[in-house]
């Protein structure tokens, strides 16, 4: 059953339509939420609640449009709200540039060990960002949204997204040149 058929089933109050969508997207959705919240349980709760709301509002879903971006946006937004509500993840040494350094690392990853190590560092770097910065990174690099989509989604001006990414890239250049001069 494809997404369109699954949504049609939900609209007819058939819960197995929801089951198809959950099975199809739950892992990616929970990982996206986890990258924002850094809390597995909370991430699962967020995705669970998002699917439940989707099911209850299935009459309003346009099945002719791609479902995945709609779901993922809802999940990231809900995750961001939860983190802000908790107020527990504000960091003093937020450094989005460091994360971008890791994400856009020039070096090839030769072994699984190096890859795992780098992934670990990325997770650490993510944890040092503010919730909004995390959401921006997840949307741009994990969900691979365009800057325009992100601006629309975060209801902020495109220039703001551009500025956020620009600031990170500027810092990235500084960091890279500093690392090179140390070597």
């Amino acid at each position, binding site marked *: 059953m494809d997404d369109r058929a699954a949504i049609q089933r939900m609209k007819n109050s058939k819960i197995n339509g*929801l*089951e198809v969508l*959950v*099975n199809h997207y*739950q*892992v990616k959705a*929970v*990982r996206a939420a986890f*990258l924002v919240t850094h809390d*597995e349980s909370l*991430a*699962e709760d967020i*995705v*669970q609640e*998002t*699917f*439940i709301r989707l*099911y209850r*509002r299935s009459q*309003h879903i346009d099945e002719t449009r791609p479902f995945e971006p*709609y779901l993922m*946006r*809802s999940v990231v*937004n*809900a995750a961001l*709200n939860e983190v*802000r*509500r908790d*107020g527990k993840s*504000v960091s*003093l040494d937020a450094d989005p540039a460091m994360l971008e350094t890791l*994400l*856009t690392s*020039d*070096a*090839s*990853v030769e072994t699984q060990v190096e*890859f795992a190590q780098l*992934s*670990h560092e*990325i*997770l650490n770097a993510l944890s040092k960002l*503010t919730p*909004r*910065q995390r*959401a921006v990174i*997840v949307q741009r*690099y*994990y969900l*691979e949204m365009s800057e325009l989509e992100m601006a*629309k989604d*975060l*209801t902020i*001006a495109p220039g*703001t997204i*551009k*500025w*956020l990414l*620009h600031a990170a890239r*500027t810092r990235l250049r500084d960091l890279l040149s500093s690392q090179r001069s140390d070597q």
Partner: protein
Amino acid sequence: MKKTPREYLDAAARTHVSDNLNLYPRIAAQLEKVTFTGTLRARPVLMAFSILCALTLVTGVAYAVGRSIGYFPGVGIVEQSDGIYILAEPVSVNQAGIMVTVNRLVADSMRTYVAYRVDGIPPVDSGFPICTDSPGLALPDGSLLNFTGGGGGGMESYGGAAMSFESSLTFAPLPSQTRKVIFISPCQMPVIELLLVPAPINMVTPATEIEVTYEPVSSNYISSITPTDDLQTEISTPEPHLSSLPIRPTNVPNGSGLYLDKVIEMENSYVLMGNFTDAGDLPGPVVMGQSYDSIYKPKIENALGETVSFRVRQDISPVTVWTWFYSWAYEIPKPVTGPLKITLDQVNIHQSDTFQFQFDTGPYPGSGEQWELNLPFKLGGYDYVIDQVQMLEKGYLLKWHSGIDIPERTSFSLTIHDLSPSMTEASGGMEDRRPNNRIKYARNFLTDEPVPTGILTLELTLYQTVPLPGPWTITWTPPTP
């Protein structure tokens, strides 16, 4: 083989979220339960309470809890209900000529404040001479207290002599009955055991947290927030930071502007504590500044329209400058002829402006090949001319120029439209203000992937800081004596 950013992030998340996840049983079970909305509909009293809470937020009114507070010089507002404990006298440790001294420790039920100093740091020829470790605080059982703020500090040096460093940090509150903590010195210096004693009563100036009621008036920048459907609206308003501990975000019902979080009444003054929040509804992100000296100062007027003098109380609300807000504390001497109007006339915002143009490299361009374009354009209201594009081994170099009327502190980025994020942006840029009557610029676009060719859409973005007039105002009425 090089991984994509998405693969890195997926691998990072996989360590906590397995491929075998199965949420469906929980979701199916949840759908059978009575929802919170259903509960509200069935219980009018609960619903009325919810509406009351919502109205409280919208009108900008908050109510103080009845806490026993006071002002502790150099530390700020402290809570006295569980007592205040201090270090009886400074304690030092010396190793190889370097001395670490804990000058002060103040512990209340909200935080543990520590001020320390390092003397005798050997000078170096260049660079920063001290290791960048931060000290820590541990309990006698070895568990570490969470760091919550502070840091920084100044380095003193006189004529090549040994240097000194001073700083203060804030940690989580101590468990009750704890009268001993361990100061973990930075840079492999010996630890210091700190014994605490009750603070003398006269050390704390009595203060009262009073009800905060104020009227905010924001500038007309709110309308740019676009409402979306129910599933996507909750993100639209960032939260201001409340100056009280713990940090507890709330809504920003009035969009960007001044928010009053707390008012402390002292014997001879009121201390107003609040924040300026950038709610994302302005034409660009607000430049928040990096220190108390560089953040914006408002004017305060009394009911007669007279300017009221006030003092910035950094010791009460420490420097807190975040991407989306800064907090402030202003002390206003009594008597006050209210209501008081606090007005911020102007802030600075970051703005960007983008120019796109198409350019055809032809089917087989070679490294070093150049194209003279002589293409005039406007960015940020100023005239520029694209002079030349040059193909590099791993990308392109763009050169352009302007007249000399361009303000300093502008910067540019260059991207090629519609390329994946793994294509890296320019790694170098140049601005040359020496030539006669023109400023020359250059920026390159480099990529590890095959250099794109054919018809390309280049995007040059200008970033600048411009003043944005307000005003943003809040009106606070002091309590009747």
